[in-house]
């Protein structure tokens, strides 16, 4: 078995989660060949073949050209699997490659099963198993589902080129920095976070009162920020802040992977949710099955005594 691993660069640097691709290849198991649109001074730490397409020519955000480079590498290597991370780069590029090859794509793989792959579904509440038909298969991997493996060794560098005529259809105008942080949740010992389950903007105050009673800060899930209930500086998750307080209290938060990625390393996690099967239960040390608007004020009142 052979896997073509598509590593990822930003601002010329290889992203660390690209090494999860090796962790996955080891579990298949498959021999790994790497493809990177990057530059020579920044190659992955691995032996074996590494195909390099020059980022100066193909750009970092030009998926049409990246697709052509991937197809060229597939042509040369005839891999069984083409593997990307399920990141903003991977979910953007993978369907273009799969459509180009007219082959199956399985998205956000979390585990290798005996006869197929395990994928999350229904907002992470459930799992499904899927088997690809035909070959090669394009896969994207859930961030954090497979271990980071740095094989080490010296790569056997091969340059790869594809037709850059026509420049592709997406013109990259530049990066824009993330919105300013506002509160530094990284230092807080306790964070009490509000999710959509709090119901309305006014109820933020109920969450803030518990945060005060515990001497902590207020965090939030993304919909709470998107709805304008609190400003973006409070958002926890892949597109917000990554936090690891001693205590994290998630109030009315379902536990989507993008939220969990920002808080699952917290010392102790309490979740308050009316749904006993909410995926936040997976990481919670204590799951309180209750209505937030009943439980949280009761807890705050008791702590004040």
């Amino acid at each position: 078995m052979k896997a073509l691993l598509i590593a990822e660069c930003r601002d010329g640097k290889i992203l660390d989660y690209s090494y999860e691709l090796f962790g996955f290849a080891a579990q298949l198991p498959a021999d790994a060949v790497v493809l990177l649109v990057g530059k020579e001074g920044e190659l992955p730490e691995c032996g074996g073949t590494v195909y390099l397409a020059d980022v100066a020519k193909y750009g970092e955000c030009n998926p049409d050209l990246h697709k052509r480079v991937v197809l060229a590498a597939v042509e040369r290597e005839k891999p069984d699997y083409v593997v990307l991370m399920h990141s903003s780069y991977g979910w953007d590029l993978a369907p273009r490659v799969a459509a180009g090859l007219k082959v199956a794509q399985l998205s956000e793989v979390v585990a290798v099963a005996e006869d197929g792959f395990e994928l999350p579904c229904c907002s992470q509440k459930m799992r499904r198993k899927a088997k690809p038909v035909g070959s090669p298969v394009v896969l994207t991997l859930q961030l954090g589902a497979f271990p980071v493996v740095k094989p080490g060794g010296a790569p056997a560098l091969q340059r790869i080129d594809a037709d850059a005529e026509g420049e592709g259809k997406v013109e990259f105008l530049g990066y824009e920095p993330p919105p300013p942080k506002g509160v530094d949740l990284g230092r807080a010992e306790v964070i009490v976070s509000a999710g959509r389950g709090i119901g309305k903007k006014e109820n933020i105050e109920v969450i803030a009162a518990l945060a005060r009673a515990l001497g902590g800060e207020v965090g939030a899930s993304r919909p709470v920020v998107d709805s304008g209930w609190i400003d973006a500086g409070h958002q926890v998750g892949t597109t917000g802040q990554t936090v690891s307080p001693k205590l994290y209290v998630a109030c009315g938060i379902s536990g989507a992977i993008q939220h969990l990625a920002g808080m699952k390393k917290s010392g102790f996690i309490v979740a308050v949710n009316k749904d006993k099967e909410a995926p936040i239960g997976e990481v919670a040390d204590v799951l309180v099955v209750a209505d937030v608007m009943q439980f949280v004020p009761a807890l705050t009142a008791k702590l004040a005594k």
Partner: protein
Amino acid sequence: MKILVCIKQVPDMESRFRPDASGVWYSEIDMAFRVNEYDEYAIEEAVRLKEKLGGEPELTVLSLGPDRVVEGIKKALAMGCDRGMHVQDSASQLKDPWQIASAIAASARGENYDLIFTGLQSQDRGSAQVGTMVAELLEYSCATTAIGFEYADGSVTVKRELEGGLRAVVRLKTPALVTCQLGLNQPRYPTLPNIMKAKKKEILTIPVSELLHEEPRTVMAGFYAPAKKGTGVVLEGDVADQVDKLIGILKDKTGLLR
């Protein structure tokens, strides 16, 4: 100008999911369905563009699925789309993204849409494939994960959201397809007069068999709850009792309370 919005109907995510008789997808018994959250952003963005351009563009909303998806189409019409297209398929849950994209692309081929909006992903299947594949099949330019969108003179500028909140700004020429991310806009609630007006709007029905000639690329092989790795305590019952128990645990385990 012609615009297409693709929407999927999905169950309320707070539902309890159980396998259906086939064992490879969920049972629809007792499920309440709604429009996929990401697709509501797609509808809203299309309607805003129409308003901005003085009502000139024609907005078609398409949904592929069983008869229940007409409810979703009606909501989009009440939000401001002009006409609906129901690609009727009573077994859409068994189609893979490649097939769904092929059917949508087939319906779009003769229509020469200038712009297509889809969601980034569906909340139930979550493959984040259908939109991008439609673009590939139609050879449209495509940007995914839009949190910002602007149109001017045949080109669109999209702010794409990357990890850690970083954004990439890209420009595409029409015809183009954009997949919408959470927070792109605040979807409106249909007003009563608009719901009434929507009743008069046309909804075309096309059987999927007229559009789809592709075999699936994947076989669905199972549907189940994730293995519980959590060793967490679950507190149920009376609130006062839950409060006391939780305070006890926090005193024991965190050293934050005395």
